[in-house]
């Protein structure tokens, strides 16, 4: 039997260096006794004699994951924690993937211990309550805490990160930690009477606690699950709990029974002022008036799933009316047509075809974004005929005001909207079709078609074809 004396209850480094030497010497787990100060001792155990292992005695391999696990497990109060880890260390040499076998007895136990330690560390970051004390060097903050596992060293860096500019101490029965704004130090355990017993803000904190509580939703079990009662004795707010529970049902019954309390006179006056201050929509005509009207459009159900109406954009004296399909994700958020990737491509093609951007008014056949929510994304869905028909009203209005020299239908939806008929884009591309409510309609592809192409050569060829279509538009209008 070999005994290993560790320096403190969660001495990971000590365990690691001893375990390494023992493992390389081939010492069986049952022949090692791990001892910590204050831990249980076997009276008949042998004295600590470490086997002499030279540094080149072989190699010991463990994953980072095991080290992480072991760093947590050593903090557990279970007396067998070091023995368990040593046994696992040896097993890992034969079975490198042991940790994936989460239902293995050792792995399951170690994971549960690590989980308990993580939870206790978390609860310590949550439930430590500092009390301010005056000292010769200025204010200091002192807390009394009783952790269930040996988590003080593990948790101390959290408090340094958070309160680096404060001087603080956390006293516990086993180990105390102190931060002097420069370095951490540890001293032996203390008793509760060494910690201050009040703080100037605790009454405020209790007041806050009592008033943020909603008496209509009493869920005592949920509170106790997350804030077990063993922590209560060191939480200043816990003294308020019994009274709050007791008065809760009375308070919420009172609210239900109480008649509506209305400060009628005062509120009528204020509401009148609010109404008066509201900017009333000016009655403007033209495209701007049309845009304002369209903002509240509910001619089809598409508005309900979209952010806003995306109306057309361009100068009132534009000679070319470009009509696409519908706004996309970006357009829906920005409230402007053709600002997404397809819009950028469209702008570039327009420039390459020598068309002045200000001569173009761009709009969509359907003015709300039709989509289907899928997780964090919205999947584009093509509008159907009834949605296209419902929205045609707006294009008619836009066209009537603009009186364009030529209208360009980009893609199948625009053809449907402008001509009332279905035509294949590829068959009618480059042709001029007739519209029942405006003059000639020139057909080309939608720029998003170019974005969907995968092959680089296809992309180049189709982009050139698109520019060629736009050049034809320029020739038709400007000669």
């Amino acid at each position: 039997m070999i005994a290993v004396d560790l320096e403190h209850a969660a001495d990971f480094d000590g365990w690691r260096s001893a375990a390494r030497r023992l493992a390389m010497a081939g010492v069986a787990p049952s022949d090692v006794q791990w001892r910590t100060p204050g831990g249980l001792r076997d009276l008949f155990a042998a004295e600590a004699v470490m086997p002499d292992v030279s540094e080149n005695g072989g190699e010991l391999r463990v994953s980072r994951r095991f080290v992480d696990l072991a760093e947590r497990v050593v903090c557990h109060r279970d007396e067998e924690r070091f023995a368990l880890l040593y046994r696992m260390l040896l097993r890992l040499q034969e079975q490198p993937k042991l940790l994936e076998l989460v239902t293995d007895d050792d792995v399951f136990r170690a994971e549960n211990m690590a989980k308990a330690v993580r939870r206790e560390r978390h609860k310590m970051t949550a439930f430590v309550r500092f009390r301010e004390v005056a000292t010769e060097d200025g204010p200091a903050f002192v807390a009394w805490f009783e952790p269930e596992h040996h988590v003080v060293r593990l948790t101390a860096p959290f408090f340094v990160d958070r309160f680096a500019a404060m001087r603080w101490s956390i006293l516990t029965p086993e180990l105390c930690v102190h931060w002097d704004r420069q370095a951490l130090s540890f001293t032996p355990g203390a008793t509760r009477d060494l910690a201050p017993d009040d703080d100037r803000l605790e009454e405020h904190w209790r007041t806050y606690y009592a008033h943020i509580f909603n008496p209509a939703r009493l869920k005592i079990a949920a509170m106790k699950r997350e804030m077990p009662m063993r922590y209560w004795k060191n939480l200043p707010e816990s003294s308020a709990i019994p009274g709050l529970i007791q008065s809760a049902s009375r308070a919420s019954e009172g609210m239900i029974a109480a008649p509506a309390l209305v400060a009628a006179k005062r509120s009528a006056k204020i509401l009148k002022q609010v109404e008066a201050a509201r900017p009333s929509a000016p009655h403007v005509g033209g495209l701007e008036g049309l845009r304002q009207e369209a903002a509240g459009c509910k001619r089809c159900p598409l508005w309900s799933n979209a952010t806003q109406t995306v109306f057309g954009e361009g100068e009132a004296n534009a000679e070319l009316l470009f009509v696409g399909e519908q706004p996309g994700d970006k357009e829906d958020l920005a409230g402007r047509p053709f600002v997404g990737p397809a819009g950028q491509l469209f702008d570039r093609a327009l420039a390459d075809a020598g068309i002045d951007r200000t001569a173009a008014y761009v709009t969509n056949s359907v003015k709300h974004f039709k989509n289907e929510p899928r997780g964090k994304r919205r999947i584009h869905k093509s509008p159907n005929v009834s949605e296209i028909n419902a929205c045609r009203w707006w294009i008619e209005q836009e066209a009537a005001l603009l009186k364009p020299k030529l209208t360009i239908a980009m893609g199948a939806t625009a053809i449907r909207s402008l001509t009332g008929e279905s035509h294949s884009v590829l068959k009618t591309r480059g042709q001029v079709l007739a519209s029942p409510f405006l003059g000639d309609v020139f057909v080309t592809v939608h720029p998003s078609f170019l974005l969907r192409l995968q092959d680089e050569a296809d992309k180049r060829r189709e982009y050139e074809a698109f520019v060629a279509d736009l050049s034809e538009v320029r020739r038709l209008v400007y000669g």
Partner: protein
Amino acid sequence: MAQLDSMAKLAVLADAAKYDASCASSGTSKRHSRDGGLGSTEGMGICHSYAPDGRCISLLKLLLTNHCIYDCLYCVNRVSSNVQRARFTPEEVVDLTIGFYKRNYIEGLFLSSGIIRTPDYTMEQLVRVARLLREDHGFKGYIHLKTIPDADPRLLEEAGLYADRLSINVELPREESLTELAPQKDSRSIRKAMGGLRLRMEEGREERRKSTRAPRFAPAGQSTQMIVGADAAPDSEIIRTSATLYSGYHLKRVYYSAFSPIPGSPTALPSQTPPLMREHRLYQADWLYRFYEFSVDEIVASTTDGMLDLALDPKMAWAVSHRDRFPIDVNRAPREMLLRIPGLGVKSVDKMIRMRRLAALRLADVARLTRSLKTMRPFIVTLDWHPGAATDAAGLVACVTPKIEKPLQLSLF
């Protein structure tokens, strides 16, 4: 009006803030104060306390003032309510936040406000508190600011540079209900503001990809809240609205808040205890959509008259109405099918997948991977277990329905 002392103001303004369910302090950028200032954030938020309503207390959740010029009927602070009013100065909120923070009571501040004078003026006051905390006190803890949709975009911009999280409440699942119950609010401008925030957050991340010095804009994203049970919208409508919000504005969370009776509640609203079980089921459905790869239509298909089953969680409800998909062999089924097994969570599924590469799973293994083996038994096949005809048995629903289910919340009184 008599001057209230700070304790009395705290009582009034915490009372006024408690109907906002959000208290999250997670998911923001990692910060510490080793090089100055006060405070830190880790990836995970910390709940510093729990109230007897079971809700976590992570942030100092306050209204700057509960004076309000709007008249939203569901709100205790509406102009026509004669609740006691109070107003903090920005400096008072800052002092309280710092004082609480140094004692480790809180992770930071969640500040909201009644609308006073104008939306711009109100937003300016909120931003001022955040600016004082960040710039004058070097505060590195968590800040959540309620965003007023009609405020000037420049104020929202400034808010996003100081705050970790911004939120705008959609309040009610139906647009018509909002028009009716909150006549001064406009659901269109709420959605537009959310859309604007999403664009700005994406822009911020893009800038930070180019330069790590670019300022962060609301690194913990945006969230919202919907009140459940104040209007007639069924669960199916609420779930659809949530999906629209998640997909459209990339919200971190949609909070559901069971409508609570408020002091002096107007008669237009239901006078009943809050529908807590309904709220719970909605959260479960929300989880199925976000983490379990259920589509909205699948969740809605298992509702009755648009309502989720109160006695059965929605994943179980789906399973009992799709018995032909079960039992599922946990040693072979793909991840998306494992996620459909009632009682099996995302973490357990991923552990299962890693483990089954090394060894075939037995029932005892499953028992150690999850806490709800009893629930799962009729739905799974392992190396040493097959439920036989149990999945088809007519009594399945009875056998998987928890027996301790209370008759809703009515038993509280």
